[in-house]
């Protein structure tokens, strides 16, 4: 009889129930979309933030010490270098998949037109196959996405070409395809200017060349000054901050959690394990900005989810209350016939929950669609569907429907059969 009454009520009140279901669809779809985006947004936002360049720099431990103590960087600080053949080991660490791009840097000084000028040797592009079989495509070009380049980027094997910073080019009236002569260690070499770049920073007065060219000019074969690394990281929390101070202060459990989470400090720690004499340090400004933006984006998604849940709850509340008031005579009669308050409340809640469930299922799939639209529009890729969202949405749906039913429940429990049956 219970289910019979519910089914008949749902059929009889189909328009109202469709309105309730539609409201649930809206709320659940928004919640589903926001939560899927929220859970998948970490990587997406991180990837978007990679336009700000490297978030980790690896230097020789002595060079890093000079940098920490005196703020001195670049060639001439000391003569300690990293080994070029260690660079590819970055991809072998536990969080190797989170290392998106990297490039070795060799800084040096040459004579150009009789003026002491800074050069940067690097991998403009690097395409290789790792021992694991993974294809690797990286290089400075991937780390300097904001550069404005007049002409072309250097290719992987452009050992006879250079790129010149736009300030240096302006000062020396250098154009693309010009030939320039650089001298170092008593030997000169003529390079073709393949591109003029605008970095917006110190590099605009420097000359960029391939790593082999720079190593040859500096007589530093197989050596690099630093490695710039762009890694996907998890925003720091108290554990990460504690580990950053001293990983030895962690308990074994804490260490395991920290090591197996992509905190920037954990990734730096793992990099140091594979780079001989290397000290990896986060570029704090970039790393913290990423964490802040990610946290704020997540907060925004959570707020939208909460607001959509509240909005749905209020709308459902109005619809259910209106429905119950309309049926007050019928529900009052059930009380007069001997139904307890809880039996009437159960009847109405069951109707609403069934309607909500139907709306929730539809809303979930609509929400997945919304999430993909957001993923494509904002991040240019699909959002991975998180299964845990189903559980969270189910809980949200239950409470939204329950809270939305509270005014109706209060009305029902206060309803006196005499008032509706005698028309008083």
């Amino acid at each position, binding site marked *: *009889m219970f289910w019979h009454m519910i089914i008949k009520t749902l059929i009889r009140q189909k328009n109202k129930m469709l309105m309730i279901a539609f409201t649930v669809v809206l709320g659940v779809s928004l919640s589903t979309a926001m939560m899927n985006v929220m859970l998948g947004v970490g990587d997406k936002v991180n990837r978007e933030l990679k336009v700000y360049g490297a978030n980790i720099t690896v230097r020789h431990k002595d060079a890093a010490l000079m940098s920490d103590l005196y703020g001195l960087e670049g060639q001439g600080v000391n003569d300690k270098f990293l080994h070029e053949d260690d660079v590819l080991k970055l991809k072998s660490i536990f969080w190797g998949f989170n290392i998106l791009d990297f490039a070795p840097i060799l800084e040096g000084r040459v004579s150009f037109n009789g003026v002491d000028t800074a050069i940067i040797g690097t991998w403009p592009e690097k395409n290789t196959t790792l021992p694991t079989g993974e294809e690797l495509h990286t290089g400075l070009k991937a780390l300097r996405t904001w550069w404005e380049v007049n002409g072309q980027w250097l290719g992987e094997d452009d050992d006879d070409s250079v790129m010149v910073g736009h300030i240096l080019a302006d000062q020396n009236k250098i154009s693309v395809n010009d030939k320039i002569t650089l001298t170092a260690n008593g030997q000169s070499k003529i390079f073709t200017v393949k591109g003029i770049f605008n970095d917006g920073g110190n590099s605009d007065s420097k000359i960029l060349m391939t790593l082999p060219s720079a190593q040859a000019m500096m007589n530093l074969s197989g050596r690099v000054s630093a490695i710039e690394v762009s890694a996907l990281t998890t925003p720091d929390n108290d554990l990460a901050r504690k580990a950053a101070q001293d990983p030895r202060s962690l308990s074994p459990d804490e260490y395991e959690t920290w090591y197996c989470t992509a905190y920037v400090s954990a990734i730096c720690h793992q990099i140091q394990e594979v780079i001989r004499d290397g000290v990896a340090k986060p570029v704090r400004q970039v790393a913290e900005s990423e964490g802040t933006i990610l946290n704020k984006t997540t907060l925004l998604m959570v707020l939208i989810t909460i607001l959509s849940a509240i909005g749905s709850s209020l709308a459902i509340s109005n619809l259910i209350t209106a429905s119950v008031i309309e049926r007050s005579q*019928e529900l009052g009669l059930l009380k007069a*016939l*001997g139904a307890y308050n809880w*039996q009437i409340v159960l009847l109405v809640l069951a109707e609403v929950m069934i309607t909500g469930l139907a709306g929730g299922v539809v809303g979930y799939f609509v929400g997945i669609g919304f999430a993909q639209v957001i993923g494509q529009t904002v991040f240019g890729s699909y959002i991975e569907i998180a299964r845990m969202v189903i559980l969270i949405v189910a809980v949200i749906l239950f409470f939204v429907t329950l809270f939305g039913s509270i005014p109706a429940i209060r009305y029902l429990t206060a309803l006196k059969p*005499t008032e509706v*049956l005698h028309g008083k």
Partner: protein
Amino acid sequence: MSKKILELKNISKIYGNLKALADINLSVNAGDWLSIMGPSGSGKTTMINIIGCMDTPSTGSVILDGVDISRENAASLTRIRRDKIGLIFQQFHLISYLTAVENVMVAQYYHSMPDEDEAMEALAKVGLSDRAHHLPAQLSGGEQQRVCIARALINSPQILLGDEPTGNLDEENEGIVVDIFRRLHDEGVTIIIVTHDPEVGDVAQRKIILEHGRVVGDIDQSATFGEALKLRGSHV
């Protein structure tokens, strides 16, 4: 001597400054057929609400089947009403989306267990076997009221309580319903009805006249409402 099924002792019901019932005393024996008449505002509905466990008196006691129910809470009153009272309404109050037999079964559901065979028997008692699977909208007013009576009888209540049970019926259907009451009375069912219709009221073996919340007349079958009212110089 019949068992006393209902006793109202010094019942008053006060709403703010209004005294809807004032010091009512009334005893009803099992198997009695009682009709209550009175002008609008005389307290008939308030009295029937109290007897039907849908309201409680401000003062006084209601003894139903030997138990004082006047201070029971709402849940207890619901249980007592479900077990001991069968309600018949002027507007029938059938659930529009349930068939006649389903409307009867609803009362069974909230009492114990729905049993379609028993519900069909109850409908047969009021002559509606062939209309059992019709919706209320497909039934005449008289038929709807007979469904309402079947629903009130389905749980074998100790008192059948009717609030203007013929108020919405034409003469023919009024006769049918009164005949059903007469038959139920012969079977020993206790019937209390509130009515404006002297002809319906006169069929009862005992008549109560209410005015301004007080019992002003308690007459037996030998006199009619008309005669009693003429003596008092009042009308309903």
